[in-house]
Structures are given as structure tokens and as C-alpha cells.
């Protein structure tokens, strides 16, 4: 089987984001999605610190400490971009104006519960940022993550053991092995990587999967 690397997962996510969409990319892995938007497709990137219309990274030496994204990395602004204060920014999120957000995850449950902010360790310093607002407010919540942990445990689970970020909020999961939709009746496999059987994918996944029609055809 050919597992996808991080950029391939990001490219797969980018394929599903249509022209004209307002999109928030979470800190870390999801920011890679911006590099894979197909040429000629216009999407508008939002960052919760108060900016719409984020462009590419600035050239070395062109960074501006007043123009950053939520990951506190220097960014640029496209023509048509705008700045606004935090309450407006989270009004865009909570008010359902952001079409897609892409988040990383520790765990996603069969019901679409998301755990991505806290490992639950007692000495860990908790930090949540905007994750709970994005989970509750974006029209579609897309999760992008490795299918299993470094020790081989499934990150897709019956019930999250880590503290929740949001309840029944995830719409679609993109991993290095598969694309899986979260629907009211459970987890539907949309795609699998080449050379992976449904049985093997199910063996690596900690919650029951259903084989969607498209994926079944391809298999």
C-alpha cells in the first residue's frame, strides 16, 4: 500500500475546496493545504487573528511583524484582503460564515466528536485558542491527520478518550490511508489509497466503517 505523505494529504484536502470558498486553516499540518490549491481556483483564506485574503508567505526580508496568521507566522495580504478585530473575526466563525475549516486532531469519534486541544495529561498546560469556536461554527469541519498514532493506535475511535474540542462537529476525515465521511449513521469510506483493502483499513481503524459506493467501485 502507498501511504500518502503530508503534502499528498494536503493536496487531497485542497481538491475538495471549491472556487469562492472562505476557508480557515488550523495551525500546523492544515496550513500545508494553502500550497496545494489548484492554479486558477480562487479561494479566500481567513485567519482568526483578524484577516481575510491571506496570500503567500513573504519573501525573506519582507516580513512585517504586524501581518501574521493565527500561527504567528508572517503572511502577506492579497488585493481585496481586509483586517478586522477579534470579535468580528470570531463572529465570522461562530456565525457560520466560514465555509470550511481544516483542523488537525488527536482523535475523531464515530459520531464526529473531535479531540485536538489537550492530551489530558495532568501536568500539561491547557491551551485551546480558537479550536472550539472553529469546531462549533464552521459550516464544514475537515480533519486532516495520520490514520494511526506513532505507536500504532487508531486515531479514529468509538469514543474519544482525550478531552473534547467539539461534539459531533467533524464532517470529513482525511488521513494518509483514506478519506472518510462522518454521517448520522456512521463512518463511510469515500476513498482508500492504492493497494489497501477495506478489510485492512477496518483492521487499522478503531470504529466500524462502511464502504461507500465510490470507494467500493474503485476497490
Amino acid at each position, binding site marked *: 500500500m502507498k501511504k500518502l505523505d503530508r503534502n499528498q494529504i494536503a493536496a487531497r484536502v485542497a481538491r475538495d475546496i471549491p472556487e469562492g470558498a472562505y476557508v480557515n486553516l488550523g495551525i500546523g499540518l492544515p496550513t500545508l493545504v494553502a500550497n496545494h490549491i489548484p492554479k486558477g481556483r480562487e479561494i479566500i483564506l481567513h485567519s482568526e487573528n483578524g484577516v481575510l485574503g491571506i496570500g503567500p508567505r513573504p519573501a525573506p526580508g519582507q516580513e512585517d511583524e504586524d501581518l501574521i496568521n493565527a500561527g504567528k507566522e508572517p503572511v502577506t495580504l492579497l488585493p481585496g484582503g481586509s483586517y478586522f478585530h*477579534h470579535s468580528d473575526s470570531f463572529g465570522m466563525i461562530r456565525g457560520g460564515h466560514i465555509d470550511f475549516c481544516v483542523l488537525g486532531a488527536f482523535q475523531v469519534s464515530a459520531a464526529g466528536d473531535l479531540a485536538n486541544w489537550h492530551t489530558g495529561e495532568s501536568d500539561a498546560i491547557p491551551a485551546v485558542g*480558537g479550536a472550539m469556536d472553529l469546531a462549533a461554527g464552521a459550516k464544514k469541519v475537515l480533519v486532516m491527520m495520520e490514520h494511526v498514532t506513532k505507536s500504532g493506535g487508531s486515531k479514529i475511535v468509538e469514543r474519544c478518550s482525550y478531552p473534547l474540542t467539539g461534539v459531533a462537529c467533524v464532517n470529513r476525515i482525511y488521513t494518509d490511508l483514506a478519506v472518510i465521511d462522518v454521517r448520522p449513521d456512521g463512518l463511510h469510506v469515500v476513498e482508500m489509497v492504492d493497494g489497501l483493502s477495506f478489510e485492512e483499513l477496518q483492521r487499522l481503524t478503531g470504529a466500524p466503517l462502511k464502504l461507500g459506493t465510490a470507494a467500493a467501485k474503485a476497490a
Partner: protein
Amino acid sequence: MISKILATPEAALADIHDGATIMIGGFGNAGMPAQLIDALIGQGARQLTIVNNNAGNGDTGLAALIKARRVKKMICSFPRQADSWHFDGQYRAGEIELELVPQGTLAERIRAAGAGIGAFFTPTAYGTRLAEGKETRRIGGRDYVLEYPIHADYALIKADRADRWGNLVYRKTARNFGPIMASAARCTVAQVREVVELGALGPEEIVTPGIFVQRVVRVPASASLDKAA
């Protein structure tokens, strides 16, 4: 003649009392009023409750205020960072209190204070440990958590330009919490790069009207800002 312009950061912060609740603007370093924070450290007020998105980076600004042991409690959304060692150490030692608030809820609680709202229901954090013990309600088939406003004695913010009435404009994403914190505090102090003549800021351009600002201090731009401008 109205003039909210004060000569120095020290003069602008002279009356801050021990135990005050202080909002500090900024998201990371963008919009952080570094010279006002330095003046607050020098001023000496203790047992402060600080409202900021983070809990300090490195050894300067808010991190230095924490290092100086002036902060009793942090209200923030994202304290843990690679370089938040001063907060981390005091938190682990039980020497600083933390109220962790989702970022959008933090913003809305600040906005609510400035807008005279008594409380509000938000869907954010429903069903999570950050909503434990809070009142909830199902409205229109959706579950919400009741949240209360955060009022402050002072807000220390950074803007780009001001006039003597306290009207403010900001620079790029350094705007972040500035406008809402200005509205939520009894006394808002803005550090600005430039003070301009009344009328020089276009009325369509002013982001924070001076009604929300009590004191303005000009702090010359750093070299990096000059370069960027």
C-alpha cells in the same frame, strides 16, 4: 480644549492599583503595547488579573510582567507556547491562576462588557470540559453555554495613529483585540506610533472612536516598523 495625550507611559499608568484587572492587547507580538507593559512593571502594581490571548512569549512584554511576579491570574485562550516559560513555571508551581477561555468566547466576553450585555449564549465549548459547571440551554434545536462579560479597570492597547480626542487607527493584524478591549475597560490607555492633528484621521477611517479611549501616549516606532512602513 480636550487632550487625552499624556507625555509618558509612566504618567499614563500612575494610578493603577494593586489587584486591578488589566486587559493587554496583542496577539503574540502584533499589537502588544510593549512600552506600556514596561511602564507597568516599573509602576509596581501587584496581584493583577491580566486578560490577553496568550501568557507571554520569551522574556519581554507580558512575559516580563509575569516574571516580575505581578500577575495573580491570567484569563487567556492559549498560554502554552514554545517560549512561555515564565508562565509555565509559575503555573506548574501553583503560583499563578489560569482561567482558560476559548478564543472566540474571550473576544465576545470582552465585547459584551463594552456593549453593556449582561451575558450571552454561545455554542462554543458545549459538551467539553471548558463548559463544565456552566448553565446551558437548547435554543432552536442547538445547545449553548451561558457566558458572562469580562470588565476591566484598565486596557493597555497599541494602535498606529491617534488624535487628541483619542480616535484610533491600527496597523494590519495588530488591530486584533484593541477595539474591543478599548470598549470594555473603565480606563483605556493607547500607545501609538504617531499623534496627528484633529481631523487628520478621516471619519470613515477611524476604527476606535475616542469615546472608548481615555489616555494616549506616543511611543516612537521601532526600527523594524519604520522599515515596514
